[in-house]
């Protein structure tokens, strides 16, 4: 089976040679932190999958052609600039217009200091013109060549297309406090912004589907939950978001795309049924967190309607081989059943030792991968262990 056949068979609960073996890439600090532990210096996020013996490292480390290359965000972006530099900590205006404080010694999520999007006037002036789905700059220059590949029924890799974001990007652009107030103070404006985001997704996807592209999954990004639950009440979610998700997912289904996944960290429990109601049928990356998200529990609760990707806790990766083996074995029946692609529940952080990650990749290939290509992994594991011992 090729990557595409394996992905589709998994999402359709059909027989396949083995489960897809993906991960969710790494924090920027992780690979450098692993070099003294034995990782060769030439390994980066783009090529790490081959060294670890995985099929794909989602978010920049997959083989070529898995994503369309269409820009479904702000187009053009704002001009990026460093506004203040205090050495380790600096202030930057990002491409999305948000002013953030970052730390050079730690590539964590930055702190939002200020926003370009603050009211109706700034929305009209700075954001609406950047959300035009017909802007040609959104689409790759080699469009015709890509279209031929996208329409090829014998393509060997899956194709993932951008479904944009209905709330998450707006939250980023405005800040949580501002958008929370907008929901109450100016609901008509809030709805207008959400509608614009939906129109962007529909416009971009419509243009893609018109080409005859065989899209295997549409990806949405929201990140609208934290450790306690959603950042927006389920009532508001149902009122403003669900009908628009439905329009987007109806378009996808009309053109044969069965999988629409949403990337959302945090405790998503309260939103899963609402996403399903809107036709968003795949949750990613199922962050386990201290709230204990569990793909097995979700399958028991929602049945086969709910597809899942992720669900392997980064804390388990940090805990060590015994915990990793136990979790790989615990998830194995669900992996076998299908509708689930197990992978780390976020980018792998630097507090996970390289030896643990090698052990994880080895166990994933042995159990979920039904023993595929184990020898190179074993050799790498021993080489890394030897290198670490030499130090």
């Amino acid at each position: 089976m090729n990557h595409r056949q394996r992905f589709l068979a998994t999402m359709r609960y059909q027989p396949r040679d083995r489960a897809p073996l993906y991960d969710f890439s790494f924090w920027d600090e992780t690979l450098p932190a692993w070099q003294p532990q034995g990782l060769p210096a030439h390994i980066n996020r783009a090529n790490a999958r081959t060294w670890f013996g995985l099929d794909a490292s989602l978010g920049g480390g997959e083989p070529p052609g898995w994503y369309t290359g269409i820009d479904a965000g702000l187009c053009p972006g704002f001009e990026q600039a460093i506004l203040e530099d205090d050495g380790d900590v600096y202030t930057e205006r990002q491409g999305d217009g948000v002013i953030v404080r970052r730390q050079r010694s730690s590539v964590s999520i930055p702190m939002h200091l200020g926003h370009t999007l603050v009211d109706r006037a700034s929305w009209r002036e700075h954001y609406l013109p950047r959300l035009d789905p017909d802007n040609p700059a959104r689409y790759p220059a080699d469009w015709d060549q890509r279209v031929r590949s996208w329409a090829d029924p014998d393509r060997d890799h899956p194709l993932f297309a951008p479904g944009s974001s209905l709330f998450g990007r707006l939250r980023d652009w405005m800040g949580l406090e501002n958008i929370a107030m907008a929901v109450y103070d100016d609901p008509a404006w809030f709805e207008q912004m959400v509608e614009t985001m939906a129109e962007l997704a529909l416009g971009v996807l419509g243009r893609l589907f018109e080409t005859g592209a065989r899209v295997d999954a549409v990806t949405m990004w929201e990140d609208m939950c934290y450790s306690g639950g959603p950042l927006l009440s389920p009532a508001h979610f149902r009122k403003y978001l669900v009908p628009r998700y439905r329009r987007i997912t109806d378009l996808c289904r009309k053109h044969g795309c069965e999988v629409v996944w949403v990337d959302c960290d945090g405790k998503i429990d309260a939103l899963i049924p609402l996403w399903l109601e809107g036709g968003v049928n795949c949750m990613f990356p199922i962050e386990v967190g201290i709230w204990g998200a569990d793909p097995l529990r979700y399958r028991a609760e929602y049945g086969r309607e709910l597809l899942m990707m992720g669900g392997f806790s980064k804390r388990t990766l940090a805990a060590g081989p015994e915990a990793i083996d136990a979790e790989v074995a615990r998830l194995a029946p669900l992996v076998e059943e299908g509708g689930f692609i197990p992978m780390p529940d976020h980018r792998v952080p630097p507090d996970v030792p390289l030896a643990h990650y090698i052990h994880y990749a080895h166990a994933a290939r042995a159990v979920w991968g039904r023993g595929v290509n184990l020898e190179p992994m074993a050799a790498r594991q021993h080489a890394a262990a030897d290198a670490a011992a030499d130090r």
Partner: protein
Amino acid sequence: MRGTDTLDALTAAIEHGRRDEAVALMRAAVAAGEPPRKMLDALAAGMADVGRRFSNEQAFIPEVLTAARAMKRSMAVLEPVLVDAGIRPEFTAVIGTVQGDLHDIGKNLVAMMWKGSNYAVVDLGTNVSPETFIEAAGDYGADVIGLSSLMTTTLPAMQRTVRALRCAGLKARIIVGGAPVTSSFARRIGADGYAKDAAAVVRETRRLMPAG
């Protein structure tokens, strides 16, 4: 409207984030000469109610933020009355996100909930060193110190901060919280208390300082 009705309505207006109504009711209560302590309690009750619903996933961050805004505007009306009556904040709290961590939403929510319970809050911001926590706690005579962290990678900084505060011999109680923080981690690093969310922090503060 009778005094108790006004104050009950004020509590409900705070809980549901109706700021204009809350301010009008507060003005009416002040004009009617309601006891300052009762008016303060009515505000705190509104924040406590929304906090309870937040903990039970019946209210969410927008609802807490709008309630806090209504409370803040109403408090501005009440403050001169409290000063005249000699009513001071119940406790002084110092709060910050630990060193290496730039996140502030959770910390800001906790600060709002404390303010809503009539605590004086000194917000040190994000990426706060142990030394800054020690200095501020001493300068402001903190009764309670709140440490927040979002990232698993900054949990060691939380541990270092608790250790430094202990070594400095401060009397203040230490409460920790944040996405990766658990009660067992809080115990292990020697914190006095743990709050799983912003609403729980008020209950935890009361548990640690029942005389308040």
